[in-house]
């Protein structure tokens, strides 16, 4: 619900959600431009615009770099960031808790486990799978792993309430993460050196190895799930009252939980297939957007998607630039930013009486 408070008198000309949308839009444009221009080879703005406009750039290599490398990577960063942020907002609404996040709750680990299974064992079953479906193998396994984790998490924790709910939720996350970690450890123990290398890049989260073949199906799944979450905005508002009161307003909460669980699993599965585990996007972005634009999901969800695209594209830019000519996995950049933010959030809640 776009907040009705905005319709009350004494409001500035531009509402806070609108102002935030404008700011994020500008930031996204700047981030897109910076991402396309900067890197091991700098490309001039004129050349970037020329390539985007379909004209011939002054520097002939610019087209190859932009369309072959930076463009797809940027698209992946924005899509994964937007989707992960949406998944975070959806989990938070579902758990009625701003600390709920796919990474912390172990859903990402579940997806990584599925992906690890495919990386290690996929080669031996690849012959049995029709060739058309092969690009879907990794996203599909990631999705299945995410589904398994989210079913576990929802079964254990979504109904809990009261002062222990936050604690229980975080403990469930620790448990699921530990379990997934152990199984991934097993997979890496039996992996060959090449598989191990791919696996460890996966665990750190990186957009460096985005494959075009995986990009298109993953983008498809991400858009599908994002659209699915977007249709639930009104219901997510009602869920803030709690499960029973939301039902008293006619909301089928069981159906909503299944739908959101599926959408989050789709997002995390596809995102992990593209980039490996990237945490904290779903935690930081909804938190900041809620502070500025309020909690109503009809404004929150589009802003969160926009904010996620901005944050992850900027984080990826940093990941590419800080250690030139090498690069840092973007998952590590996000963790460096996100983990302190998470601790600050947690401390704020402890001080406000853990609830």
């Amino acid at each position, binding site marked *: 619900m776009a907040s009705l408070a905005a319709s*009350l008198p004494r409001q500035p000309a531009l509402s806070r959600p609108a102002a935030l949308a404008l700011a994020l839009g500008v930031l996204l444009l700047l981030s897109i431009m910076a991402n396309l221009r900067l890197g091991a080879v700098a490309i001039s703005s004129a050349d970037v615009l020329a390539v985007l406009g379909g004209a011939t750039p002054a520097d002939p290599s610019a087209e190859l770099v932009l369309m072959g490398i930076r463009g797809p990577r940027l698209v992946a960063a924005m899509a994964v960031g937007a989707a992960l942020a949406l998944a975070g907002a959806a989990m938070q609404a579902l758990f009625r808790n701003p600390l709920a996040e796919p990474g912390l709750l172990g859903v990402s680990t579940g997806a990584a486990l599925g992906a690890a299974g495919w990386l290690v064992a996929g080669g031996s079953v690849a012959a049995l799978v029709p060739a058309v479906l092969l690009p879907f193998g990794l996203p599909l396994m990631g999705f299945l792993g995410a589904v398994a984790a989210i079913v576990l998490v929802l079964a254990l924790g979504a109904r809990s309430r009261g002062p222990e709910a936050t604690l229980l939720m975080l403990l469930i996350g620790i448990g699921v993460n530990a379990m997934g970690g152990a199984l991934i450890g097993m997979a890496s123990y039996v992996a060959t050196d090449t598989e191990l290398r791919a696996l460890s890049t996966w665990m750190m989260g990186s957009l460096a190895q985005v494959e075009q073949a995986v990009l298109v199906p993953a983008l498809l799944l991400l858009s599908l799930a994002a659209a699915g979450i977007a249709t639930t905005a009104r219901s997510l508002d*009602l869920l803030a*009252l709690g499960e*029973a009161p939301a039902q*008293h307003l*006619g909301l089928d909460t069981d159906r909503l939980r299944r739908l959101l669980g599926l959408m989050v699993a789709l997002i995390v599965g596809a995102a992990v297939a593209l980039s490996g585990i990237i945490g904290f996007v779903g935690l930081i972005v909804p938190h900041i957007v809620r502070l500025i634009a309020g*909690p109503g999901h009809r404004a929150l969800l589009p802003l969160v998607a926009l904010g996620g695209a901005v944050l992850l594209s900027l984080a990826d830019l940093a990941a590419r630039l800080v250690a030139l000519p090498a690069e840092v996995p973007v998952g590590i950049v996000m963790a460096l930013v996100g983990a302190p933010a998470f601790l600050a959030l947690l401390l704020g809640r402890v001080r406000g009486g853990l609830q």
Partner: protein
Amino acid sequence: MSLALDDVRIARGPRTLVEGLNAAPPAGSLTLIAGPNGVGKSTLLDALAGDAAPAGGQILLQGQPVHRLPLAQRARCRAFLPQRVGIAFAFPVIDVVAMGLAPFGLSPTSGPGKAIVEAAMADADVARFAARPATQLSGGEQQRVHIARTLAQVEAALASGIRHPLLLLDEPLTGLDYAHQFALMRRFARAAGDGASVFVSLHDLVLGAPHADWLLLLAPGQPPRFAAPAALLQPEIIAAAFALSPCEAARVLAATGEMTSRPTTAIAAE
């Protein structure tokens, strides 16, 4: 539409709390559910709302078992405020109240929806902090926000052509100050006057009895009693139901009696 309770048995886990409950208050009346703590008032209200099937017997709304009605249909014909409802994120008060319109698809920014939300906020005296986050209010103020939301739901039902919606309130006045307790009890009676079938659980007879058309008295180990208030507000009945001394029961009845001597309509019109 009115609610009919037919030989209803209410249980919490393996323990039967209420047995052999028969009641069919006419549409547009206010029924006060009274009794000591733990006697099953909340469990009964959950069953009336359709959240759970009764352990025995039937609770019929429009001639159908209420817990079998589809969620969306139930939401359009009954508003329910359980105890201790919270709100998870910092929604402004006006947004929380407007959630009461959700089952009807009414827009809260224009037309009848807007009028309903504004009237409900005025009735519960929360219009002053309409734009403030509900999470920043005191407990009593938050309770009034949820009362306003529930009133908005029942008013939206009336406005949508449902003539006799159910209004179920579980200890709605706990934690409120005197002025709001009295004003809101009058407001609930007015909802009954408008056609709603109102069920309010209270442990405070003094507050509730003057506005009640019917009294449903629950007491541990005794059969439930459903009758006009005057028939049940007798010293020995009250003393036995609430485990009071004759002197204490007399004091309670003196406080209710002075007010029951005036017709409900006169009080509701104040």
